[in-house]
């Protein structure tokens, strides 16, 4: 199950790294790969049984004692005897020898032939590659087993012939894999370097490329060993396989088939032997693949501490002050911290801010500061396995942090809409833009298909998408980034939301398009009387478009205030650092202004002031404990520092 479990993690846990100490890492590695260890032990066991078969088997596997025909398990025949009185245990043991030998033989041959050819054609490219690919394309129309039939027709029947036939089938597959790997490696710098250094092709292939591709090839080979056993027993069962004198599981099953009605037990031992062997090779291959990919064992989501639908929602509503549309109070978002019992990771700590009616609030910070997470939590969209574990999000008489999913869905897109940085990636690639834009109208406003379509065309006109009537039948990949962002703005506005969350809406766009989109947003905000939460790392954008600004660092709000104040007289050294890293006010940045260093990951956040390691003004007392948010800033030295920005 190793593979299955870890896939989940890859999808879920990308955002939540955890505290890792070397001891824990080793422990987790061993625990996580217990199945792999067991599988490797199983394989070693099979190899030992194969080698020492003559010592282990109680009887000659071909010695038939007619008197013991069809005997069940007993002290004489531990697994019973077959239809002509041969000892089943001995036959299983010698069958192991055959299975191990034929599968290793065929996979080894396939590796020796397929991998070098694949690496070579992939590395050389051009005609060689095209020719080889044309040939292997043939095998897309001839299934492996049928190809093996044809090969056996040519090679004749027998143990080595069968192994050779299977080897040829696998060589073709390995060749394709090796080729693909070589094509990928060819693009890397080290190959160029080797070429420039004048190394011969064989040296580059076997000394440079092969070591870098050996991992995936070994994984494939491990799984192929299992397939080899499966195919060879299948061929043998069909009567195409091995020499009559060779004892193997496939022919044992073939014989068992004849006694199916009278002695069904006979089919059990060879079947279980095959299952065991194939399972071991598959687990070993999967475990190896996971280990190479650096995957870790699955982790569970924490118990949701803030119960949805709690009664607090309605009560809290009354406290919302008049100018505020949304008020966030003491929001905490946590991710599970690795293995069971570990402390959860706090991604957002005590985040409080409010968005007023008709204003544009800038939410600023470097990547990793928690800006996007704050916006997503407003809509109840914290990615799993993260959870809002405490705090309130007050909106329209409700606490969004406590609402059940169905009620949140009714608010999303209708009362609070959101647009994202990469707008093309925000559309389903296999549905037309028109279908997708119509969806909020159809869900939230109950519009019919034709009505919704007409409205979508109007909206696209409004946001300045030319030829709207034709373009609604286009797919997202046919839109430019700027046009897609306009389309997503049109969709966000379609239901007349009171709040628009804009998560870096212009970051992915060209500078000229950025200005157009920002102007459009400002224009629409006034027209629709919306409140906008503009997430950005660009202080130029904040200066131009926002009324107030909230600065975030490492999951906390570090400063808040009116744009004019914060930008000219910052009170937190982080804001100051961001501002001084911005070269000129009139030039909008398309890159993050650089403050030396970077935001530490959540598991490395300091206990005291989180900015302390990068702060030019830090003192010893800054590291002693959490810094409270007082008077619009989270800095112990706010009273004494004079952080004037000179431009």
């Amino acid at each position: 199950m190793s593979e299955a479990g870890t896939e989940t993690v890859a999808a879920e846990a990308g955002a939540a790294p955890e505290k890792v100490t070397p001891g824990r890492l080793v422990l987790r590695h061993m625990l996580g790969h217990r199945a792999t260890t067991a599988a490797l032990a199983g394989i070693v066991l099979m190899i030992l049984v194969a080698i020492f078969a003559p010592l282990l088997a109680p009887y000659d596997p071909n010695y038939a004692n007619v008197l013991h025909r069809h005997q069940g398990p007993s002290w004489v025949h531990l697994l019973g005897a077959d239809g002509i009185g041969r000892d089943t245990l001995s036959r299983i043991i010698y069958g192991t020898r055959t299975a191990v030998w034929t599968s290793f033989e065929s996979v080894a041959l396939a590796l020796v032939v397929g991998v070098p050819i694949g690496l070579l054609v992939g590395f050389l490219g051009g005609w060689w590659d095209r020719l080889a690919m044309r040939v292997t394309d043939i095998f897309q129309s001839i299934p492996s087993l049928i190809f093996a039939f044809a090969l056996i027709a040519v090679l004749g029947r027998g143990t080595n012939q069968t192994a050779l036939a299977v080897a040829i089938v696998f060589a073709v597959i390995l060749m394709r894999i090796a080729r693909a790997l070589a094509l990928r490696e060819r693009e890397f710098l080290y190959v160029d370097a080797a070429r420039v250094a004048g190394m011969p092709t064989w040296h580059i292939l076997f000394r440079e490329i092969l070591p870098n591709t050996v991992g995936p090839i070994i994984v494939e080979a491990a799984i192929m060993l299992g397939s080899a056993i499966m195919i060879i027993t299948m061929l043998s069962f069909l009567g195409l396989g091995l020499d009559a004198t060779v004892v193997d599981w496939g022919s044992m099953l073939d014989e068992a088939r004849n006694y199916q009605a009278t002695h069904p037990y006979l089919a059990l031992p060879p079947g279980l032997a095959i299952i065991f062997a194939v399972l071991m090779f598959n687990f070993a291959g999967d475990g190896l693949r996971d280990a190479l990919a650096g995957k870790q064992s699955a982790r569970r989501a924490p118990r949701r501490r803030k119960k949805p639908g709690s009664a607090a929602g309605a009560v809290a509503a009354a406290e919302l002050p008049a100018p505020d549309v949304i008020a966030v109070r003491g929001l905490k978002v946590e991710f599970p911290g690795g293995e069971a019992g570990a402390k959860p990771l706090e991604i957002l700590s005590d985040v409080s801010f409010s968005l007023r009616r008709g204003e544009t609030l800038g939410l600023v910070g470097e990547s990793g500061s928690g800006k996007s997470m704050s916006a997503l939590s407003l809509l109840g969209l914290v990615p799993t396995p993260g959870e809002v574990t405490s705090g309130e999000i007050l909106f329209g008489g409700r606490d969004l942090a406590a609402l059940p999913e169905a009620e949140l869905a009714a608010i999303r897109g209708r009362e609070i809409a959101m647009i994202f940085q990469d707008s093309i990636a925000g559309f389903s690639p296999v549905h037309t833009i028109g279908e997708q834009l119509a969806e909020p109208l159809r869900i939230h406003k109950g519009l019919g298909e034709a009505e919704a379509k007409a409205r979508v065309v109007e909206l696209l006109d409004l946001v300045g998408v030319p030829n709207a009537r034709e373009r609604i039948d286009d797919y997202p990949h046919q839109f430019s980034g700027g046009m897609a962002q306009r389309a997503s703005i049109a969709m966000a506005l379609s239901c007349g939301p009171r709040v628009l969350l804009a998560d870096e809406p212009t970051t992915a766009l060209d500078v000229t398009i950025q200005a157009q989109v920002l102007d459009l947003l400002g224009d629409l905000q006034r027209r629709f009387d919306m409140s906008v939460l503009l997430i950005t790392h660009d202080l130029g954008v904040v200066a131009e478009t926002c009324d107030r600004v909230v600065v975030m660092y490492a999951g906390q709000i570090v400063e808040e205030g009116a744009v004019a104040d914060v930008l000219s007289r910052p009170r937190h050294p982080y804001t100051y650092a961001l501002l001084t890293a911005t070269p000129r006010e009139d030039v909008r940045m398309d890159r993050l202004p650089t403050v030396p260093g970077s935001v530490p990951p959540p598991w490395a956040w300091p206990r005291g002031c989180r900015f302390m390691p990068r702060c030019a003004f830090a003192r010893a007392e800054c590291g002693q404990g959490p810094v409270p948010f007082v008077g619009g800033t989270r800095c112990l030295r706010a009273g004494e520092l004079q952080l004037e920005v000179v431009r």
Partner: protein
Amino acid sequence: MRRLILLRLGMSLVSLVLAAAFVFFLIQLSPVDPVVLALGEGAEPQRLDAMRRELGLDQPYVVQFLSWFAGILRGDFGTSFFTHRAVLETLLERLPVTISLLVGGGAIAIVVGLAAGFAAGLRPGGWMDRVVTSAVSLALAVPGFWFALMLGLLFAVELRLLPVAGYVAFEDGPLLWLQSLVLPCVALALHGMAVIGRHTRGVVIDVLGSPFIEAIRARGTPPGRIVRRYVLKNAMVPVLPVIGVQLAIIIATSSVMEKVFVLPGLGTLMVASVISSDFPTLQGAIVVIAAMVILINLLVDLGLGLLDPRVRPQ
């Protein structure tokens, strides 16, 4: 879409010619001389030569291939050295069994595989996911023919619900025909089901993690609608080619089920032809199977064209 159909149709024909040529020339490598086989070891050289001339075996291989392939296009697959029957006649006799197995086994593998994959992938880590992933690992290690024996033991020998073996043609009784196919189809579907299920699960998890799902949730689309409308269609794009490959494997492994359940299909015909070195029959059967696989690949490509606008030629 019309351009895509024409393009893929052309490519399919090329694939068929290449596959036929490959099989033909591969079989020519055999050390077995069919004429000696037909006339016996001790036949006089003149008789051997006469038969070679008669069958066109004295011609260069390329000429032989062209006349053989041209014959196939006309519906003439040649004559068996062994039974002296027209190969086409034998193939047509056997084809209904193979097609029944493909359709039955394929349908079970697709339906159960997709359902299990979605059930597991929509709630990764849940109990359903654990059941499905365990079942998949086990199913991939169980040899299909052993599973078939066990099914036969349980449902035919013990419970006597279904026939142990044998095939009844559809014309001779639709119900009996269906009964004779249930166990083979279930056994045949086992691996395909597991592979489709595992792949679907992974794809569903990937799709759920993609940015557009977050954006669609932010629009207020209800979860059920997201799955039905967006996850389903987006997930089918990478799953469809896997289904195609599994159907091809089902055609191949039906030979094993034919042996277990004594069904007269193309698989046992091929096995018998390999054993008796009946090359015209073997070649013919492989070409028919290649044609079926190519047709499946064509349908998969067209299905992808319908699902995904990005693969349609502009």
